[in-house]
């Protein structure tokens, strides 16, 4: 029998970490990516990566506290056990990255420096300048290059994943296309790890890279993989508006002491530097005295939105607020935040060290993703703990296997055996809202911890039934033929029914999709608008089915790839809108103006979206979660009622 192989689709942090772990176990890996893996979207991450550490520990922090923050931050929507395991593993991940040579910022004594991040009162975020994601992906890219040089990893860069091949209910390979030659072919594998990242492009402009269409996940979804919590889309409070992209201004700007404010007086056109303190409305600090500017993202976003849209206090009468760093020493800022401040200066033309930045929320991250399962670990307190706070630490240590059982084949596996989902495309860890600097952690955790599960699956489960190697070639040929037919359909002038009223511009559909989703499915959502949105999506799907490509090239046809992805994005958009419509409550990033309260009895459940191939639509139901470790409590972050009067200035975190 030929050697078993694993396919990893995606070379961001999750895919690279998985490749390293699987190759290390002696299993050859075929690694697919739209772009050279070193250029994956993970390079964009700026702020850092969370983990309990010795300093925080001595101040009363613990892995358990990190777990607790993540559950609370996610508004009690995540299954709790995987989150516990991730938090317990976090310090080991930092140590490993450190050994790989990541240039983490250092203290005078040479220890790893730490910064404050949203949703925590402890410094537990590790960082490498203001380009932490770039530095982490480079370290993993280098390790993968080492395995590549040894022949254990084969890279397929500029290859697009088109379809998972499923035989007898199990993954046996994929269909992919070379984006240069446009060759479509199949690849055999005993397990397929999807690590394809987020879906920001569904919203047109977001903080994500241009390749983040979510199409790969949408294709698995159409092939029968369930999709979890599609409606949970994070809108980041601070981004820089741009013509092609909404560039992120990292939360680290606030973690290092940045303050968000607007002039108290409507239509105040003075230079911000001339507005005295008393006439500035530091609305986050006033409304959330404990957390101030570092409240979690969904909260900051809604407050900015309400100050601009409801109160009309936006700077220059537009939807924007000040993010102010000018009270901090320029040298300090250059050292801690140089990379991100340079982005602002480069694209806006003003130096944030000397004039306050103007920012507004933007679509940023998808908590939802392919649905996955896990095997519970050994930690099982008899009584669920009440909301945990430092001082009443849970009686556990950070041993391996308390949250999830190490090596259980189904960890982070989807409902289809042999298809795994790692990283942002996995719905598991962040519930209804992700805390800053927890994404990089979840990506690497998935790759390292669940990579072992993939190896065990192919050793113990896959071959006993039907190894990919023994599956008839006709299965693979049929899958290739089906993808070739889709391409032909887009190239031909007529739609499947033979109609001639063709639509020629995929970019127009893309723009309308982005505008519609941004208007209906972001900060504030409501029944009527969501229904209207679903109507619009039906119209776009219809127009899409009559599309013809302007570029008929059979060599390197980017419009082809974009247009194909558009069809898949429309289906994900529908799942997002349907999930948002059916979830008649407010939780985390999902805020319904017509159902403003959290409703645990009905909705402390995973939204499960299932694709129905016959009607080409989404059906949604709600499945219970395992919340046996921490009892849900109200998630207020100590909010005080808003007052127009200047409040006493709270102590500033981090300064």
């Amino acid at each position, binding site marked *: 029998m030929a050697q078993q192989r694993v396919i990893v689709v995606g070379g961001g942090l999750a895919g690279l970490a998985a490749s390293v*772990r699987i190759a290390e176990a002696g299993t050859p890996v075929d690694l697919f990516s739209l772009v050279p893996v070193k250029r994956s979207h993970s390079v964009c991450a700026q702020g850092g990566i969370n983990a309990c550490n010795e300093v925080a520990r001595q101040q009363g922090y613990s892995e358990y506290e990190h777990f607790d923050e993540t559950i609370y931050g996610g508004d009690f929507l995540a299954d709790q056990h995987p989150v516990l395991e991730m938090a317990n593993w976090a310090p080991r991940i930092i140590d490993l990255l450190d050994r790989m040579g990541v240039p983490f910022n250092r203290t005078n004594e040479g220890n790893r420096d730490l910064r404050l991040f949203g949703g925590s009162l402890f410094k537990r975020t590790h960082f490498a*300048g203001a380009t932490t994601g770039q530095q982490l992906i480079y370290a993993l890219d280098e390790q993968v*290059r080492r395995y590549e040089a040894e022949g254990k990893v084969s890279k397929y860069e500029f290859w697009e994943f088109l379809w998972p091949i499923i035989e007898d209910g199990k993954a046996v390979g994929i269909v992919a296309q070379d984006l240069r030659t446009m060759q479509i072919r199949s690849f055999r594998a005993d397990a397929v790890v999807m690590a394809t990242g987020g879906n920001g492009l569904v919203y047109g402009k977001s903080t994500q*890279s241009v390749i983040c269409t979510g199409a790969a996940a949408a294709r698995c979804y159409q092939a029968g993989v369930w999709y979890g919590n599609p409606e949970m889309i994070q809108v980041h409070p601070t981004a820089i508006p741009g013509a092609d992209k909404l560039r992120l201004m990292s939360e680290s700007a606030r973690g290092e002491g940045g303050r968000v404010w607007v002039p108290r007086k409507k239509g105040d056109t003075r230079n911000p530097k001339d507005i005295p303190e008393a006439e500035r409305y530091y609305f986050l600090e006033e409304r959330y005295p404990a957390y101030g500017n570092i409240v979690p993202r969904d909260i900051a976003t809604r407050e900015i939105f309400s100050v601009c849209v409801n109160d009309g206090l936006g700077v220059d009468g537009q939807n924007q607020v000040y993010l102010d760093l000018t009270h901090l020493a320029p040298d300090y800022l250059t050292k801690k935040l140089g990379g991100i401040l340079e982005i602002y200066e480069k694209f806006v033309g003003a130096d944030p060290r000397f004039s306050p930045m103007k920012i507004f929320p933007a679509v940023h991250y998808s908590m939802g993703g392919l649905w996955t399962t896990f095997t519970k670990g050994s930690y099982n307190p008899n009584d669920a703990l009440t909301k945990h706070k430092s001082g009443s630490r849970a009686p556990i240590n950070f041993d391996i296997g308390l949250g999830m059982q190490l090596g259980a084949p189904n960890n982070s596996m989807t409902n289809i055996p042999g298809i795994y989902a790692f990283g942002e495309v996995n719905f598991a860890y962040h519930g209804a809202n992700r805390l800053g600097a927890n994404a990089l952690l979840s990506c690497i955790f998935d790759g390292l911890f669940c990579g072992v599960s993939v190896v065990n699956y192919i050793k113990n489960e896959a071959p006993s039934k039907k190894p990919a190697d023994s599956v008839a070639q006709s299965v693979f040929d049929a899958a290739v033929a089906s993808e070739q037919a889709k391409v032909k359909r887009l190239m031909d002038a007529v739609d499947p029914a033979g109609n001639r009223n063709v639509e020629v511009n995929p970019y127009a559909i893309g723009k309308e999709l982005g505008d519609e989703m941004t208007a209906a499915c972001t900060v504030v959502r409501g029944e009527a608008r969501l229904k209207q949105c679903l109507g619009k999506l039906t119209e776009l799907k219809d127009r899409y089915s009559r599309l013809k490509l302007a570029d008929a090239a059979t060599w390197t046809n980017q419009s082809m790839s974009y247009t194909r992805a558009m069809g898949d994005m429309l289906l994900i958009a529908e799942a997002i809108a349907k999930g948002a419509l059916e979830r008649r409550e407010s939780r985390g990033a999902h805020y319904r103006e017509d159902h403003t309260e959290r409703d645990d009895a009905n909705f402390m459940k995973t939204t499960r979206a299932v694709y129905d191939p016959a009607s080409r639509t989404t059906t949604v139901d709600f499945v219970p979660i395992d919340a046996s470790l921490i009892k849900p409590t109200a998630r207020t972050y100590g909010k005080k009622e808003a007052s127009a009067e200047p409040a006493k200035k709270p102590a500033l975190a981090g300064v």
Partner: protein
Amino acid sequence: MISTFTNTDANSPLAAELAQRMANRKMAKEGRTIIFRIKRCDGPGKPSRWEDFKVPVPKNANVISCLQYIAANPVTAQGQQSTPVVWDSGCLEEVCGACTMVINGKVRQSCSCLIDDYAPGEGDVMTLEPMSKFPVIRDLWVDRERVFHNLKRVKAWVPIDGTYYLGGGPKESPQKQETRYKLSECMSCGCCLEACPQFNLEENKNEWDSAFIGAHAISQARLFNEHETGKQLKDDRLDVLMGPGGVNDCGNAQNCVKVCPKHIPLTESIAAIGRAVTVRAFTRFFKD
């Protein structure tokens, strides 16, 4: 203004260029239309041709947003139906290195190239060409596999003992971290290679291991030689860099350092590796 982060010497040509860009930015006219003159090529071995496109310039436009406009409206300035221009991009914030091309004769990232800086007036022309040191795939998209291949040549990684838990890495002073961080920002974009007179187009992969390796890989070798564990492979790296296509092929033209978007001290790296190679040559001479 931009020079505040890059510590550019006020008298350098770079500072003058930045000043010019800032001046352009100030006088840029709103609502103008400019011309993109783009060098196009349908695929390897196919002839190149120039095509002009008229593009209306909104506020904050960059080269990418204009290429997106052309993709949605692929009609030339002469009114002829054409095809969307093909280009490579990713992050759109100058951190992935994908979108590198030659703009108005100079290699740089297209995502961070603001139109206001270069074409402030109505009807101004901007030219876009693919990099010339790498094979063209189509239009502005080139195949930079060699950039990554050369990282393998110098074993640009830390040879760790595997991913099992073995405690943390070595302690490091903040000064050392700053040096390594700077070197580690290299995004393999290839600007330094495009500008280098010693680095030439080489389509035959068999020649890659003897052709000039390039400033980026030399600098990466330095990065890993500076790391406590990375150092273990120092001799292997230096042996490659004193062989054919190694550091001695560098003519010290210093073009590389002038175009590096991340301001990596490439000439410093080249000098440091040059010295290390000399030392290594001596020790090898006495050992062999």
